[in-house]
């Protein structure tokens, strides 16, 4: 007797739950319509201008030439890859690309964050504005110009740094011709040039932090450092992780201009990267097949790294997708 009474409300709840679920699904569907209307032009854009041309990646497996076009150029399977990887230097070149990128990431990634926080702590608005604007200037200098500046500073005979060292009776150091110092200068130049740009993103993110949090922390006696560690950094956590994952996707992309303008024969062992190597192979008729093949190779590696980074980010509930 008691069972029947107990079961009745349970069944009712189940029925309610089911109905609620159906209603929820219908509501969700209705909610999705305006969203997909918004997404329509976006999806068209991606299909037309991103996915449609992706078909051209097949060039990597063909001996592409203008006469036959993309469709009819002969298939050569992995021949292009074999050609690219046949040089005894190839492994070294790939390693250089990877290594320089990784260093750039480890050393360079925190810099815009630190810079943004420092700017955030400036209390005089005019000073903050000026420094903000000036600090993103180098982004607009071409690498030819930046390489010229590097030379002015670090040349053996007439470089500013060595001239200063001479005043202290120290022998001139060949900064640009030793692997370690060259790499350090290479990274520093890149970081200096690009820091102002990413700083802007972090500055925008910093505006979303509630100033009241700082006030109450200050009243509780927290020092500046503790405030930054416990309020500021967590406040922009999502932005940091997003940019970190995206940076993974660019790991194989050591900028051609940066390397080409800064490299020299003395440090060729560490400064030859994929983009400069392909440039030197020249203007032969199979240029497109080779370039596409190398691009495909780089893309596969970047993709793997991004997926990996995303998996890790998911643990912190910050996954990209």
């Amino acid at each position, binding site marked *: 007797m008691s069972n029947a009474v107990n079961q009745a409300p349970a069944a009712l709840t189940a029925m309610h739950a089911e109905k609620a679920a159906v209603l929820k699904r219908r509501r969700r569907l209705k909610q999705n319509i305006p969203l997909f209307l918004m997404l329509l032009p976006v999806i068209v854009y991606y*299909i037309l201008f991103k*996915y*449609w*041309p*992706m*078909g*051209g*990646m*097949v060039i990597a497996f063909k001996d592409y*030439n*203008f*006469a036959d*076009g*993309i*469709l*009819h150029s002969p298939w050569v399977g992995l021949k292009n890859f074999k*050609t*690219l990887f*046949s*040089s*005894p*230097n190839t492994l070294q070149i790939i390693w250089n690309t990877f290594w320089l990128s990784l260093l750039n990431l480890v050393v360079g990634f925190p810099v815009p964050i630190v810079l943004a926080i420092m700017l955030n702590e400036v209390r005089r608005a005019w000073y903050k504005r000026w420094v903000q604007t000036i600090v993103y200037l180098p982004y607009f200098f071409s690498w030819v110009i930046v390489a010229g500046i590097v*030379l002015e500073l670090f*040349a*053996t*005979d*007439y*470089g500013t740094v060595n001239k200063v060292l001479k005043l202290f009776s120290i022998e001139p150091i*060949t900064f*640009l*011709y030793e692997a370690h110092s060259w790499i350090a200068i290479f990274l520093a130049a890149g970081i200096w040039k690009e820091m102002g740009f990413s700083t802007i993103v972090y500055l925008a993110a910093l505006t979303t932090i509630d100033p009241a949090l700082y006030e109450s922390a200050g009243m509780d006696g927290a020092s500046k450092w503790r405030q930054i560690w416990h309020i500021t950094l967590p406040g922009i956590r999502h932005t940091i992780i997003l940019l970190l994952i995206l940076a993974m996707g660019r790991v194989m992309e050591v900028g051609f201009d940066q390397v080409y*303008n800064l490299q*020299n*024969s*003395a440090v*060729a*062992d560490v400064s*030859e990267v994929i983009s400069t*190597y392909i440039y*030197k*192979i*020249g*203007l*032969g*008729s*199979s*240029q*497109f097949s*080779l370039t596409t093949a190398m691009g495909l190779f780089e893309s596969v590696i970047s993709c793997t790294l991004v997926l990996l980074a995303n998996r890790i980010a998911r643990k912190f509930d910050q996954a990209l997708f």
Partner: protein
Amino acid sequence: MKNKKLWLGMTVSVVALGAALVGCSSNSKQEGASPSAAAPASTKPGEQPQPAKRGDVSVSMYDRGAVPASEGSYEDNRWTKWINQNGPANVKIVPVLRSDSTKKLNVLFASGSAPDIVNEYTTPFRGSLYDQKQLMPIDNILQYMPEYQKLLTQYPQLKKAGTKPDGKLYEIGKVKEAVPAHILLIRTDWLKKLNLSMPTTTDELLAVAKAFADQDPDGNGKKDTYGMNMSTYSEQAINEMFGESSSSTLLAWDLKDGKVVRAWDKELASLTFKKKLYDEGIIDKDYINDKDGAKAKQDFLNGKIGIYVKFTGGWYDFTMNDMGTLKKNAPTAEIAPLGYPKSPMGTFTGAIDNPVQMTTVVNAKAKNPEAVGRYLDFMMKPETASKIINGDEGTHWKKGENGCPQIIDPAKSKNEVGYAFDYEMFYSQGQDKCSFVLNQFNTSDPLQKAGMDMYKDVQKLYFDSSREYPGITVGDHMPVFSADLQVINTTILKDKGDLFVKAIISGPKYTAEQAIKDAQTAYDKSGGKQLDDFMNKWYQDNKDTAFLAKDVMTIAKQQMEQVK
């Protein structure tokens, strides 16, 4: 899981669809425009070709950002109007940025929308067009080009250089005044001050350069002078002194007993010399970072270099500007050209700037080959060329005392005429002695006369036929490697370059001999033998038809005669 599969499937089909659509459209374009190349008009010998209906021709041209707003644009200005009014065809100009010309042209060819006439200096690019069957043989339209036929007879080197492996003529070129690519200039006031004489051997050169670096010839109490410079092309000049013409893109090849070999012995000699220059502080220790020679030029203009290797281009500009700057910074400076000294490997002269330069090819898909031929012929007529390059007689120039055009107002000419010279990119200035360097100068101006006389000395020294030419031929005329060989070539060039630099800057730790040995090992390991075989086959097949060193010297001599 099911969703993932669905998504993957959709992506793959979209990509495949994309490939199909992309392929289809570009393909249909190519099918539609069937090459009309093979139909020469049937003209019986002796019969005048009928005046052709006015056809349409499209021509590519370098965009150097040089057209003043007041003149219009590269496509529409007073000169294009004149050409369209007086020429045989309706011309459409397609401007192409000089710095990225091959990228743009590649994309135009890939999409089937390239112009009929393509003007492009980059030899491997034209070669790749030939490989991909994008070119029309010039033989088909020569009948419409009497001017060029004349040139081909007078300068058979043009035919040699423009013929491709299938035996047909594909490239049109021009004959330019032969100028030495780089020359040595020495501070004669320093020689006098230090009581030295002009060096005639490489050992003497080394001694003089060292004196310049060590003995404070500018008398300012500081050891801040250089004996020579060695950045980029200046390093090439030093190589040439020892008979090898290697550069960052070219290996040094030599002819021995009718075979092509790698010039290892000459490279050893030049490397040893360069190492000495570095070790003894004669050159800027940062020379490898002076990538365009700007720092060396600066040092020279500041009066700090004793023997300066100069890029010969722009002798007029050098006379009018650089000499003045030098005198401003170092009032007692006197310079004179110095011929290459005798080296243990022989006496050589510097490389000569390509006097037979191929510039133009015709698109296989050109719809109106006759119009193309007639247009080229019209532009090659000396009267047309003179008008486009110099401007209108009376307005822009008048006849000077040597019978050559003298510019009336440089500023006016610069504005109204200066930008147009690329329209005549394929015109053989080499047949017009008025365009030669020596005729640029106004002899009544003492500064200009001095520049002119100096150039006469340069020619005497550098075109001396008792000197050997370094290398087999001018760089531009060396055979182009196929893709696989190009990869090997690039690897070898890089290895050799790196080893040589290491030898130069590492002091006693790494000798030149060691570098050569290691370079040879790397050469063999990377497949250098394939390059040897390729070069030898090329030479055997082409030694009678290719444009070689002796041909260059012949032209240089011919031209010197004209300006006596």
